[in-house]
């Protein structure tokens, strides 16, 4: 009986896998990840989840499936490490635990473990490297000056403990080249070449340093700001959504009919109106756009200054209405519904809209 059930399950799994591999889309990809988890095929699940997150970064269902997978995969390891640290703490155990939390996407816990590790073992560079890596990845993703500066600071602290760390020296060399900080870049790359004179990548970086224009008397914050400005100007056109106003307008009509929805509006970065669908007469569209702009800009500003990254989504409950705000690429959407509408149903409709319409 068990053999037959197993065979049936595997056949079903193969069928879904074939379907997903033919055309990867958020819903089926998440379903496949969940099926693989249930069957204990965690590596297969990881492969699909990785592809899914790369292709559909704004899909909540894909993100949820990935979180579930990571919990399933790392839970036992996590418990073991926590127990080992309690019993006999060591810098390596702290570093392993921090890396594991980082892998789980638990940035705050990673940083907590790193801080604790530094307190216990101040002469171990591993914690600074992890913190530097987190900030550096955040910088690459969001290009915030603060993240970049902290990344450099943590990497420098790691080097102050272990000045021969090849990877950190090269990484800092690259960052300083990007920032146009010729002297600092030279210093790091010379160190690499002192320890490894034949190193090809260090030599290539050294050649890049020679082509840099004369260094300006700027501090690191100004250098990061300048780099950000340069990149924004270069990418100005590319940052636009791949969906046109007409695309969005037509897709808004496929937003699920949830009782109580009054309007759906879409703006570019929360300011200019992009598209809208007004479900109830008498709703002032312009006022909605201005209101959404106000909320988005305050929420985004607070998020960045609170160091919790850029604003992703928000749910606002009022006495007469509720507003669900979410981002997709550089667009900001708001679903305005009556206060009595079911928030869960609206959230499900939003998830489906992202997966099946915006990623269609």
């Amino acid at each position, binding site marked *: 009986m068990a053999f037959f059930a197993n065979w049936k399950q595997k056949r079903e799994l193969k069928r879904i896998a074939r379907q997903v591999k033919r055309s990867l889309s958020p819903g089926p990809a998440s379903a496949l990840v969940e099926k693989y988890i249930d069957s204990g095929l965690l590596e297969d699940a990881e492969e699909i989840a990785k592809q899914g997150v790369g292709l559909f970064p704004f899909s909540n269902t894909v993100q949820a499936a990935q*979180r579930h997978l990571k919990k399933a995969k790392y839970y036992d390891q996590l418990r073991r490490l926590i127990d080992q640290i309690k019993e006999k703490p060591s810098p390596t155990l702290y570093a392993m635990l921090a890396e594991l939390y980082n892998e789980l*996407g*638990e*940035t*705050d*816990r990673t940083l907590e473990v790193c801080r604790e590790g530094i307190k216990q073992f101040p002469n171990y560079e591993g914690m600074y490297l992890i913190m530097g890596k987190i900030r550096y990845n*955040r910088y690459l*993703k*969001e290009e915030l000056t603060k993240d970049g500066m902290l990344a450099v600071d943590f990497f420098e602290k790691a080097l102050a403990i272990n000045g021969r760390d090849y990877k950190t020296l090269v990484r800092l060399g690259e960052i300083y080249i990007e920032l146009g900080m010729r002297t600092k870049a030279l210093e790091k790359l010379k160190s690499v070449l002192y320890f490894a004179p034949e190193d090809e990548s260090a030599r290539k970086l050294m050649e890049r340093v020679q082509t840099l224009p004369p260094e300006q008397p700027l501090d690191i914050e100004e250098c990061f700001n300048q780099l950000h400005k340069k990149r924004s100007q270069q990418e100005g056109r590319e940052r636009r959504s791949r969906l046109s106003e007409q695309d969005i307008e037509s897709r808004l009509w496929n937003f699920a009919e949830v009782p109580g929805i009054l309007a759906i509006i879409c703006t570019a970065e929360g300011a200019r109106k992009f598209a809208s669908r007004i479900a109830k007469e008498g*709703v*002032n569209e312009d*006022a*909605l756009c*201005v*209101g*959404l702009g*106000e*909320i988005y*800009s*305050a*929420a985004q*500003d*607070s*998020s960045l*200054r*609170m*160091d*919790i*990254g*850029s*604003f*992703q*989504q*928000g*749910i*606002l*409950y*009022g*006495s*007469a*209405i509720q*507003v669900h705000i979410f981002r997709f690429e550089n667009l900001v959407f708001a679903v*305005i519904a009556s206060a009595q509408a079911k928030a869960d149903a609206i959230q499900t409709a939003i998830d489906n809209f992202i997966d099946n319409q915006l990623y269609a």
Partner: protein
Amino acid sequence: MLEILEELNKEVGVVGSLVVTPDGIVVASALGPDLDSDTVGALASNVIIATGKAMTLMGDDRFYRFVLTSAYGKMVFEDIGIAYLVCVTHQNLTLDQILLAMQSASYKIKHRRVK
């Protein structure tokens, strides 16, 4: 009031909490070492004012809760009458759990007896 906030901070994933009036006056705060109460208070007040203004534009007179999710954390605002209870949390926190804890804290703040 500080005790209530400290109790709230014991919930898994809560980084810190504070009570702030819409005009930015921090009534009480229990924030972690990385968060400065005046800065968080000013930022929270900015969100409260802008959101309140936006709600008026959208045809509502007030908001009683705002759950703001960012890439690396969440901020939850809960109206407790003359002020707002603001909670800063980790990013992957289950909201139901924290909302329940916040409601309980709000009730205690509203009905507390000054010794």
